[in-house]
């Protein structure tokens, strides 16, 4: 599933994500809508999405968290005590990517906005705040110091909705379109010929309601179990009978009619009742939605060998392992707003990771997901 392009200079990793909670990524009041707090949408299709910038920001933080969790207690905060040590001596059971030599200077502040952008790269080594500019987080995701700015090596794109859950008279079905399936490599699936009709697995049910829309079934969609093998989110497995192909023109309408809308109110601590005028509504991508996107990792081989302040650089393999080892934080800390109010958890599958390492990491993830739950039976 991965694409290695230009003599392995750029590696593309596909991402599939299952929302385990509603996901709220707000527009910050820059749009008006039927709710107070609207979510980010694709301007062309009007379908909600998870912007690549949200993914990049959270993933940077989670890689930094994962790295910090392996530092021995005595070295985690005290940066000066690290200088004369070897990277192996600083970490508890480090994985390969953690042994990258620049990680000696890594701190939790390597994630988030740089507090000290006016320090030079050399000065940042011993600063307790700001991006260090040396570790895999800074080199992978980029940084900007007084004397050097670096773009980073990991490129994120937006996560778009691939399968969207809708309640029907036949239970919950996941809607998608032929063009979305084509984007993930299912080229043989065609759209319904009639723009008012849909396709199901059996194709002979007559009609099906998708929320408030009642649509005629045109025929079968020919998606098979093997086409869906990559959507194995632990206990959740999508089946062909769960999928309904809808016309491109209806997809946005159906999604927007079936978003989760929540009304919240502030509680007056004196009366214990709802505070007047403090009612607000939010919308969110509902749980059970499957999104897709990709990450590209640029090896920047051309820079290797040039006498430059940025060397050494982490390899593609190290960067993808860093992403893979930290993705479990999306299942606990989540993405977007209101993550302490029942929103935000996301289960991520990365396709394109080196097979032996992938197996090893899946083993680790399974043990952690047993604690977090999140599946079809939720």
């Amino acid at each position, binding site marked *: 599933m991965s694409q290695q392009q230009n003599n392995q200079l750029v590696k593309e990793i596909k991402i599939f994500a299952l929302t385990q909670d509603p996901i709220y990524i707000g527009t910050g009041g820059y749009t*008006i*809508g*039927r709710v107070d707090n609207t979510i980010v949408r694709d301007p062309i299709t009007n379908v909600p999405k998870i912007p690549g910038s949200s993914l990049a920001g959270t993933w940077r933080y989670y890689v930094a968290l994962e790295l910090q969790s392996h530092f021995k207690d005595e070295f985690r905060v005290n940066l000066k005590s690290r200088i004369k040590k070897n990277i192996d001596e600083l970490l508890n059971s480090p994985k390969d990517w953690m042994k990258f030599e620049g990680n000696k200077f890594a701190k939790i502040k390597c994630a988030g906005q740089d507090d000290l952008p006016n320090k030079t790269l050399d000065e940042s080594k011993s600063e307790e705040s700001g991006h260090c500019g040396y570790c895999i987080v800074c080199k992978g995701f980029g940084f900007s110091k007084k004397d050097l700015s670096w773009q980073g090596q990991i490129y994120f794109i937006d996560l778009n909705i691939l399968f969207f859950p809708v309640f029907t008279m036949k239970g919950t079905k996941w809607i998608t379109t032929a063009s979305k399936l084509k984007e993930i490599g299912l080229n043989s699936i065609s759209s319904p010929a009639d*723009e*008012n009709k849909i396709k199901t697995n059996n194709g002979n049910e007559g009609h099906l309601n998708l*929320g*408030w*829309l009642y649509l005629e079934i045109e025929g079968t969609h020919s998606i098979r179990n093997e086409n869906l093998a990559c959507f194995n989110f632990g206990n959740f497995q999508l089946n062909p009978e769960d999928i309904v192909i809808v016309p491109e*023109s*209806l997809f946005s*309408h159906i999604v*927007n*009619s*079936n978003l989760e*809308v929540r009304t919240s109110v502030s509680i007056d601590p004196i009366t214990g009742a709802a505070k007047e005028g403090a009612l607000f*509504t939010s919308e969110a991508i509902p749980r059970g939605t499957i999104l897709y996107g990709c990450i590209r990792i640029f090896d920047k081989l051309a820079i290797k060998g040039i006498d430059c302040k940025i060397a050494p650089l982490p390899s593609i393999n190290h960067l993808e392992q860093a992403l893979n080892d930290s993705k479990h934080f999306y299942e606990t800390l989540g993405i977007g707003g209101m993550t302490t109010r029942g929103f935000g958890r996301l289960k991520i599958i990365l396709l394109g990771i080196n097979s032996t390492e992938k197996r090893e990491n899946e083993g680790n993830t399974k043990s952690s997901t047993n604690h977090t739950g999140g599946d079809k039976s939720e």
Partner: protein
Amino acid sequence: MNNIEAVISKASFEIVKEKILDENQINKLLGILSTDGVYAMWVYAKSQKDIDEKKLLEKLKEILSIGKPLPNDNYDEYFQSVSEDLPKLLFLKQLLEKTLIYARYHARAMGD
């Protein structure tokens, strides 16, 4: 009909100015319209004693006629027949949503 935006903005303003709907009623109608469709919104409006649905439809008349010609004032028949053409129904839903969204913010601006 050349400028749909002008029709929508006029209707949304008048709905609030003439106190046909308050902010809470607008929010409820908007929620039902979005999740359950045009007919559901119409039925809900009729079921609410504090909503004068005739006055409301008078304001929405011009918008409704964009979706489908409105030969007489038989709205029951209109809302049933408009559902027969799906693209037109979805377009009408968008127009009504936009009208109510504008009305929602007019109501807020007026400190309803």
